[in-house]
């Protein structure tokens, strides 16, 4: 098979294949690895993953669209992923989202023109004890506040 991903992708797949009963079961880790390499999951990437796992593209697309953590559009360098489930919502996540929207002058799900910030809403991040939570790329920002958000936005912009 033609290699369409970087060497790292195939190494990772080789490493984890022993933990899965078949190739199809490796769909989620494969998508994670593909997203790590390409930043987001385009239609071509779905096809590449489907070819690699020897499953129909339809199944890949269903999974990609099901989970919010897979980006079907390119995202900014800083991806602000606000949890808006019940605990975070009660602790003011909605206000944080509106603030971020106003500050970056974009709507939820959009990316700033310079490609730096993306604001998105995700399902429960499993950190209700420290709500509200915002996941910035791979890091959790717990007990998030407007001040912390301002600091983050300004710090990264400069």
């Amino acid at each position, binding site marked *: 098979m033609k290699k369409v991903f970087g060497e790292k992708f195939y190494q990772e797949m080789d490493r984890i294949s022993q933990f899965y009963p078949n190739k199809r079961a490796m769909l989620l880790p494969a998508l994670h690895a593909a997203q790590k390499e390409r930043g987001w999951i385009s239609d071509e990437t779905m096809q590449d993953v489907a070819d690699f796992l020897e499953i*129909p*593209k*339809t*199944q890949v*697309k*269903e999974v990609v*669209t*099901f989970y919010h953590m897979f980006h079907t559009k390119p995202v900014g360098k800083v991806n602000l992923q606000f949890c808006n489930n019940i605990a975070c919502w009660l602790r003011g996540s909605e206000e944080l989202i509106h603030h971020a929207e106003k500050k970056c002058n974009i709507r939820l799900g959009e990316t700033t023109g310079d490609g730096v910030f993306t604001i998105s809403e995700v399902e429960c991040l499993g950190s209700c004890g420290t709500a509200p939570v915002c996941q910035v790329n791979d890091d959790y920002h717990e007990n998030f506040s407007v001040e912390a958000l301002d600091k983050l936005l300004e710090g990264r912009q400069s």
Partner: protein
Amino acid sequence: MAKVVIDGVDVEFEAGEKIIDVASKVNNHIPRYCYHEGLSIVAQCRMCLVEVEGQRKLVTACSTPCTDGMKVSTKSEKVKKAVSGVQEFLLVNHPLDCPICDQAGECSLQEYSYKHGQEDARTDFFRRTYIDVDMGPSIKKNMNRCIHCTRCIRYCDEVGQIHEMIAQQRGNDTEIVTIDGNPLQTAYAGGLADVCPVGSLTTKDFRFKKRVWYLRSKDTICDGCSQGCNISASFESNLIYRLEPRKNMDINKWWMCDEGRYGFHHVHSPSRVLGPLIKTSDSFESRLWGDLIPSVSALVQQAKNISVVVAADATLEEVAILKTHFSSANFYSYSPSVEKTSEDKAVDHLIRRKDKSPNLKGLEESGLRPFSELKSGSDLLIFFNAGKVRVPYGLAKLAKNAIAIGVAMKEDLNGWNYVLPSLSTYEKSGTFVNHTGMKQKFAAAIAPVGLSRPLNKILEALTKSDRKVG
């Protein structure tokens, strides 16, 4: 034999049978959306919940196999409450546009709402809305009505065997789409309208044509190919509106192809010849049967050498009638796609066949010779068909005189001396023999269209003194 007790009734079952199927043996219909006999089981609509004695939680009847002595209750208070709750959730997003929905009258959602639903709605949320989308030549999608049972997705995967439909996004945002918005590739797309329990997927052919409660339907056999799928024809005022598959596990299971499904339009085509025609110097003229029969009769009696070409959509009975009437003639079978049944073969994984005529096997068994052996130069050539096989171009030129009996289209008339309208498959009863040699009898669905007359009446009139076509 092992027994299960369903609502106090003992029912025998075979190992592995699911509660939902066993219950239907005793006419206990358990409501279902995602479950379809012919598709894999996913147990996701939760409509078929039943109570099993000794189990704390309700179980889905579609996925739970029966065990000996199992006691099932399908009507307990606990079940009623759960089912009506499921029904209520399904209606949260449903537009309730039944007055303009094609499925109304044969909709599971309507039926179960009536039986298991609640009297009034307790929700007034914003309902998700989508615009209607074309899914290829056969199907139109109305996503608003969808209840996410995923029958269509499984139908495409398992019956059409092309992975082309998906449920994208999730929860409230779930949308059924074809991959990348492509038109459906499967040759069985029309079946999506059959498996869809609501009005989400409808065939463009039938959409907005008729309210289903006006339709009556009769069982018949598809004359589209040598498979002989069991179907029913729905009609009103002697007009056929649609064909649907009937379950026959030996032939077509639950399915039929699009070619067969939409293959009835020649019956009511505006170009179908509906009255007897005679060739004049430059065109064709209509005549009444009584005026025409003497000259046809004379032509037949004068001919010393007659060839009869029988299209392979004729029934066994009609072949027998022709053989008795033209006992000294040479008989040939004609199918547009194959010469002999030995050339016939399956063209896909499911039911479609190469031979696009329903009865070539029967014609061969009746001793008709293949069409290739027909030689030109006979005094009279008689062609008989039922419309599914069209009148072949240039056939009339092979003889001095030519008569076409059957279903002819106005554009196919060139060269024939007489065109005598007879019946299409849906207007007559008879017997077809399918490619495996299975004989299937069928009855007429509708009355003869226009001045078309059955073959036996036409041939009788040729010999009768009063020349009347009964």
